[in-house]
């Protein structure tokens, strides 16, 4: 019951403090110590501001990266690789992302004539593009994303509430658990076919060293072939050793520009093609180099009414890569 009294006393003291009232002296040393903490918390910064400023500085620092430090595709620099998810019911997917990951919608533009749209979202500091259009039903392109969150278990619960399920049978190790690679992680799929690796790093930062909240993944049928293509087409670099079991790639990392992508050979029979936006200085150079490396041209470079110049190419495994440059910038 003493606890109950403390709960009330503390709340009253905090309410008074936040209202600007002078702090009454308290003989209770425990309460005084808590109010000392409360006094400091009055200056707690807004985490949304911290993320926003971090993203702004990140964009500014990208502009300052010397050319020799960037990965180049011929003369073209690739600045960012953004997952581009295509689904029939984009609205529902966005609801799922907002509920589960507290994603924020940053912008939305109409697409086509059937009420479709392309929306830009942020999960933490990382960008996602969602195209929602009924006309793509049957040809959806989901994503496999490794999302770093502060509390894996809480996000897992929210994903369950929003209709996601673990990727395999229950109690087979896909639920949140401490993993030997330094993370607590759960593996889920949502009702749109996206794979989610929801993870919290151990240690002081819940995000990995590159600081990104979302790391895109690829699930090709033959990872070494795709890695070779990405190196030749986009100047990608493989990072760290590949982890193979019985001739199957379980884990590999490639860097395109400043973005780290992870890859594993797909377990399923069918292809799991994804889509990515590649922001670059020179759409034409990226396109020509990718085609020379064996990509199929889906759409040659052209200026679009929404203000970007884009070109679309497809790799052997059906992944589509959209090279894009904003014509205004």
């Amino acid at each position, binding site marked *: 019951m003493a*606890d109950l009294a*403390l*709960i*009330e006393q*503390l*709340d009253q003291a*905090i*309410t008074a403090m*936040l209202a600007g009232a002078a702090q009454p002296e308290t003989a209770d040393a425990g309460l005084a*110590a*808590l109010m000392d*903490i*409360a006094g*400091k*918390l*009055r*200056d*707690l*910064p*807004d*985490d949304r*501001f*911290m993320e926003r*400023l*971090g993203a*702004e*500085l*990140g964009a*500014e*620092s*990208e502009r*300052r*990266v*010397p050319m020799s*430090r960037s990965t180049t595709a011929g003369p073209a620099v690739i600045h960012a690789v953004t997952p581009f998810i295509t689904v029939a019911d984009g609205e529902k997917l966005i609801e799922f992302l907002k509920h589960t990951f507290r994603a924020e919608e940053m912008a939305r533009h109409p697409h086509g004539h059937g009420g479709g749209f392309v929306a830009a979202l942020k999960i933490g500091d990382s960008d996602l593009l969602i195209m929602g259009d009924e006309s793509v039903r049957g040809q959806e392109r989901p994503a496999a994303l490794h999302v770093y969150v*502060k*509390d894996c278990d*809480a*996000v897992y619960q929210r994903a369950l509430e929003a209709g996601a399920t673990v990727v395999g049978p229950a109690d087979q190790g896909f639920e949140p658990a401490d993993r030997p690679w330094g993370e607590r992680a759960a593996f889920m799929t949502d009702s749109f076919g996206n794979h989610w690796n929801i993870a919290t790093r151990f240690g*002081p*930062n819940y995000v990995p*060293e590159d*600081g990104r909240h979302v790391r895109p993944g690829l699930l090709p049928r033959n990872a070494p072939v795709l890695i070779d293509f990405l190196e030749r087409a986009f100047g990608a670099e493989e990072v760290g050793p590949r982890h193979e079991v019985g001739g199957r790639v379980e884990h590999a990392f490639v860097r395109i520009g*400043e973005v780290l992508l992870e890859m594993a050979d797909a377990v399923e029979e069918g292809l799991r093609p994804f889509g990515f936006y590649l922001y670059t200085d020179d759409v034409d150079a990226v396109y020509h180099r990718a085609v020379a490396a064996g990509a199929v041209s889906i759409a040659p470079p052209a200026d679009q009414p929404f203000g970007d110049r884009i070109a679309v190419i497809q790799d052997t495994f059906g992944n589509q890569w959209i090279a894009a440059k904003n014509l205004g910038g």
Partner: protein
Amino acid sequence: MSEQHDDRLQVEAAQRDPSRFADLYRQNFYRVYTYVVCRVGDRHQAEDLTADVFREALAGIQKFEWRGVPFAAWLLGIAARVLADHWKRSGREAGIPAPESAATMPAEIEQSAMLFQLVDRLPEAQCRVIRMRFVEQKSIREIAQEMGRSEGAVKQLQLRAMETLRAQMEGAHG
């Protein structure tokens, strides 16, 4: 010693490749913000000025010379200058805070910065209560409505969060 070594490596990495500035930002955000907010008292002004400090630091990272002084002290030097300019602009000359000596790191800034980091590591529900209560200054009733919990449960989360923070702060200094 090793902290200083890491600090130095990170600064040098950011000087070679500005995209590595993100690490320095994350490690020093709370310090700079606390330094600024304690002096201006207003959250919105503190955000604007903190942004100015980091923009200036990113623009000038090449000018930072390693002389054994922590990078954070260099940032706080920029913060002192940004604040002095701010007071001048707003005509409050009398309030110019004396810039700290670059070598000293005021203990209260370090303590607050550590506390803010600990908030990030609270279980999610407790962290949300603390943020809504102190950042958004919401009442217990508003928080309860937003979280779909009873007011009693929110007060309990508030107490638990504060006790955890107190214990961790005492552990860090004890």
